C-alpha cells in the first residue's frame, strides 16, 4: 500500500487505465526541473505508464498529488509528481520531477 492518504491511493492507477494516451501539462517548476535534468515528455510518459504510485496526498490546488516512481527511457530512476486535472479529457498536471 502506498504511503499517503485515503481512498485516493489508486486514483492515478485507475486514471491511466482509462486514459492510456493522457495529455500532460507542466507547471513552471516542473519545466525548470526537466530542463536541469534533461528529462523530456517521453521519459515522463514512460514513468507514468509503467511506474508505481508510492504516495498520494492533498495537492495545494485541490484534489490529490500522486508521486509515481519508475525508470526513465535511459533506465535511470525518476519520480514524477502529478495531479489529475480532467477526468473527462484525460489531462494530468506534472507538478515536479525528482530523483527518488
Amino acid at each position, binding site marked *: 500500500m502506498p504511503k499517503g492518504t485515503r481512498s485516493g491511493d489508486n486514483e492515478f492507477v485507475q486514471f491511466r487505465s482509462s486514459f492510456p494516451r493522457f495529455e500532460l501539462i507542466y507547471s513552471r517548476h516542473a519545466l525548470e526541473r526537466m530542463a536541469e535534468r534533461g528529462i523530456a*515528455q*517521453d*521519459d515522463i510518459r514512460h514513468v507514468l505508464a509503467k511506474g508505481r504510485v508510492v504516495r498520494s496526498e492533498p495537492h495545494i490546488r485541490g484534489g490529490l498529488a500522486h508521486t509515481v516512481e519508475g525508470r526513465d527511457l535511459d533506465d535511470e530512476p525518476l519520480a514524477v509528481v502529478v495531479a489529475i*486535472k480532467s477526468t473527462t479529457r484525460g489531462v494530468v498536471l506534472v507538478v515536479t520531477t525528482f530523483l527518488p
Partner: protein
Amino acid sequence: MKMIAEYDARTILGYPVTVLDSAYEDEELDAIGLVNAAALGASVAVTRALIPLQLCGAELRFLRKAMGRTGKEFAEAIDVDPAVLSRWENDKQTMGGFAEKVIRQYVLDELGEAAAGVPVPKGLVPTMKIVPRDAADTEPLRLVFRLNADTQSGKSGVYARAA
C-alpha cells in the same frame, strides 16, 4: 487558457522545436501544455528522419525516446550492441550510413501513422544520400511546426512543418 503564438518546446520534447499557435498557458494552474503533444513528438521525429543531414547523437536519442524505447529495447530491435548505441548517442562513435537508414526507416514505420500531417514518400530512405556533418557539430537541427487547423482538408489537429 491562453494560446501562445510562438513557443520553444525544447524542454518538453527534448528536441529544439519552435511551435506556432500550438502551446497554451493555463493561467489558473500556472502551467504550460502543447496541443496533441504526442502527435507533435511523432511529427518531429518523422520529419527529422526524412531530412538527409546525418543524425547527431542527441537526435538519435530523441528518435529512440519518441518511439518509447529504452536503449536496451532499441538496440535489440535494430540488432546492435547496447554499448554501440550508447556510443552513437554520446557522439563517441559515428554511425554508418546503413545503420542510419535502418533507424530512419524504423522511425517512419513506427511513427508515420501518428505523424499524420507529415507526408512520407515511399521508398525514400533506402535511396537517401546521407549528408555528412562536421564531427564537432552535435547540435540537433531546429524545426518549426504549426498545428493545422484546416478542417476542409480533413487534417485538422495534426502538425505540419512551418517555414
